[in-house]
C-alpha cells in the first residue's frame, strides 16, 4: 500500500473515532444531568415532600403538595383546551388542507411552533390577566394550550397522512360517507400515533416555566381555585433554585426529580402507544 493510501485510511479511522467520541459526549451530558438529578433528588425526597405544603423559611421539612396538585390542574386544563383544537386542526390539514387555507394554517402552525414561550406568556398576560385584574391558573392553562396546539396540529396531520390510501378507498367503495370514513376509519387507524403526539405535547408543556411566570404566578398555599394564582412544580423549582437557602436548594432538587419523572412517564407512555400500533399492524 502506498503511503498516501495508508494516510487516507488513517484519516477515515480517526474521523470514525471522532464522531463516535462526539456521540459519546452527547450521551454523557444526558447521563450526567439525569445522574445528578437522581442522586441529589432521591436523597432529598421524603414522604412529607408529597403531602405537605411549603413551610416558612427557617423551618426545615415541608413539601410541595400544592405545586404537584397545581401542575396537575394547570396541565390538565391546558390539555382540555388544547387537545381538541390541535387534533381538529390537524385533521383539517390532513383531510382538507390542500387549498390556500390549508397552506396558511400550516405556515401559521410552524410560526407559532417557533415562538419563544416567554412571548406566549406575556401575550396571555395581556389577554387574560390584565382584563381580569389578577393572576390565575386559568391564564396559565391558556398560555400552555397556546403552546400545545400548533405542535399537536402538525403531528396529528403527519400521523393521519401515514394511513394508506387503500384503507380510505375501501371504505368509500363500500358507500361509507367521507366524513365517517375520515373519523371511523382514517383517524382510528392513526389513533395510536395521535395519542403519542398528545402525550408528547402534554409532556412538553408540563415542564414549561416561562409561560406561567406572569399567568399562574405561583402560590405558597394550597389551592384548587382556577381563578386564583396557583403553584406549579416548574415555578417552584425556579424560585427555590435561585433562592439563597440550602433547604430551598434541597427542595428544588426533589421537585426537579418529581417533574422529570412525570415528563419521562409521559414519554414512556408515548413510546408504548406507538409500539401498540406497530404491533397491531404487523
Amino acid at each position, binding site marked *: 500500500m502506498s503511503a498516501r493510501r495508508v494516510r*487516507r485510511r488513517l*484519516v477515515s479511522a480517526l474521523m470514525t473515532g*471522532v*464522531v*463516535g467520541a*462526539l*456521540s459519546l459526549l*452527547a*450521551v454523557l451530558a444526558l447521563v*450526567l*444531568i439525569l445522574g*445528578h*438529578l437522581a442522586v*441529589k433528588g432521591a436523597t432529598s425526597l421524603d414522604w412529607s415532600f408529597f403531602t405537605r405544603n411549603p413551610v416558612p423559611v427557617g423551618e426545615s421539612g415541608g413539601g410541595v403538595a400544592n405545586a404537584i396538585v397545581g401542575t396537575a390542574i394547570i396541565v390538565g386544563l391546558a390539555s382540555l383546551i388544547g387537545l381538541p*383544537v390541535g387534533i*381538529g*386542526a390537524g385533521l383539517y*390539514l390532513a*383531510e382538507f388542507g390542500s387549498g390556500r387555507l390549508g397552506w396558511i*394554517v400550516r405556515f*401559521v*402552525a*410552524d*410560526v*407559532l*411552533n*417557533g*415562538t*419563544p414561550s*416567554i*412571548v406566549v*406568556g*406575556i*401575550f396571555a398576560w*395581556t*389577554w387574560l390577566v390584565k382584563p381580569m385584574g389578577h393572576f390565575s391558573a386559568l391564564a396559565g392553562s391558556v398560555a400552555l394550550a*397556546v403552546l400545545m*396546539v*400548533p405542535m399537536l*396540529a*402538525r403531528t396529528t396531520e403527519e400521523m393521519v397522512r401515514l394511513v394508506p390510501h387503500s384503507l380510505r378507498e375501501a371504505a368509500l367503495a363500500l358507500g361509507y*360517507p*367521507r*366524513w365517517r370514513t375520515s*373519523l371511523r376509519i382514517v383517524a382510528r387507524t392513526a389513533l395510536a400515533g395521535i395519542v403519542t403526539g398528545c402525550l408528547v405535547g402534554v*409532556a*412538553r408543556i408540563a*415542564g*414549561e*416555566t*416561562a409561560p406561567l411566570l*406572569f399567568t399562574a404566578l405561583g402560590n405558597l398555599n394550597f389551592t384548587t381555585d382556577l381563578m386564583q394564582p396557583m403553584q406549579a412544580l*416548574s415555578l417552584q423549582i425556579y424560585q427555590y*433554585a*435561585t433562592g439563597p437557602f440550602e433547604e430551598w436548594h434541597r427542595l428544588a*432538587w426533589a421537585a*426537579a426529580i418529581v417533574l*422529570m419523572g412525570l*415528563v419521562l412517564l409521559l*414519554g414512556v407512555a408515548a413510546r408504548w402507544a406507538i409500539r401498540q400500533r406497530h404491533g397491531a399492524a404487523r
Partner: protein
Amino acid sequence: MTVLPLERLAAPDPRRQVLRGVNAGERAYRGILTVLAVLLPLLLVALVSELVASAWPAIRRFGLPFLWTSVWDPVAGVFGAAPMIFGTLASSLIALLLAVPLALGVAIFLTEFAPAWLRQPVAFLVELLAAIPSVVYGLWGIFVLIPFLRAYVVPPLRAALGWTPFFDGVFYGNSLLAGGMILAIMIVPYIAAVSREVLLAVPPSQREAAFGMGATRWEAVWTAVVPYGRAGLIGAVILGLGRALGETMAVTMLIGNRHDIGLSVLQPAYTMAAAIANEFSEATTDLYLSALFEVGLVLFVITVVVNAAARLLIWRVARGTAVGSRAL
C-alpha cells in the same frame, strides 16, 4: 303498463334523502374542523396585534434607536435594548459553536458509522435531552455546571487565552459562557435529530458512487453525503439557532442578568427572554412595561425570520416529505 301513483312521484327520491343526510354530516364535519383550524391564524393575529399594541408607547417614544441604544434606566424612563440583543446573539453564537460539531458528529455517527444495534439506543438517548425541562437545565447549571467551570475549565482557559478580550476579567459564575454552554446542550438534540433525517434522506447512490471511485468511508461521507445534504444541514443548524434565541429559563438562571455589552465570555450578560422573565413583574411604569413588550416583539420577529429561513432550507432538501417535523 303500470301507472305510477301521483303521490309516489311527488315524494322525494329515497336515495336523494340519504345523500342529503350524508351531505349534512359532511358539511358539519368539515365546518367544525375548519373552525378549529382557523383558530390558529386568528391566534397569531391576536398575538401579533396584542404585542404591537402593548409595545406601541415605547415604539413611538424611542423609535428605531431602541435597537442600538444601551441605556436601560427605568427610573429615568429611558430604554434601549442593545445589551439584550447583543447578549441574545452572543449566547446563541457560543451555543452554536459548541453544539454544531457535537450534533453533526452525532448525526454522522448514527447514519454512517454506528453498528445497527447501537443506532436506536443512542438516537433515543440524545433525543431524551430535548425532554428535560428548561428549568431543570437551569438548576443543573447553577449547582453542577458553574462549579465545574470554575474549578476545571476557566483556570486553563484564562491561562491560555486570558490575554484576549474574550477571556478577560474575573469569573463570577453566572456568565455568557455558562449561559451559552447550557444552551448548547439544550439545542444538540434538535440539530442532531433534523441532521440525521437529512442525512438519511441522501440517496444511497451518492455513497455507492463515492465508494465505487475508491473513497474511504470518511471520504464518502465528507465528499458525497454531507455536500448533498448541505442545505438541509444548514437548515438544521438555523433551527437550533431559533431554539437558542428564544430559550428563557435556563439562560435566565445562568447568564447573570446584567445590562452590559462586553466581549468577555466570563462576564455576566443579559438576553431578551431573560429580561422579560426578570423584569416584567417589576415593571412599575407603563413605559417600562411597554419597553419590555417591545423587547418581546423584537424577539418574536427575530425567531420568526430565523425559523422561516430554516424551514425553507429543509424543505429544499426534502420537498414533500416531513423531514424534521418530528423534532419540532
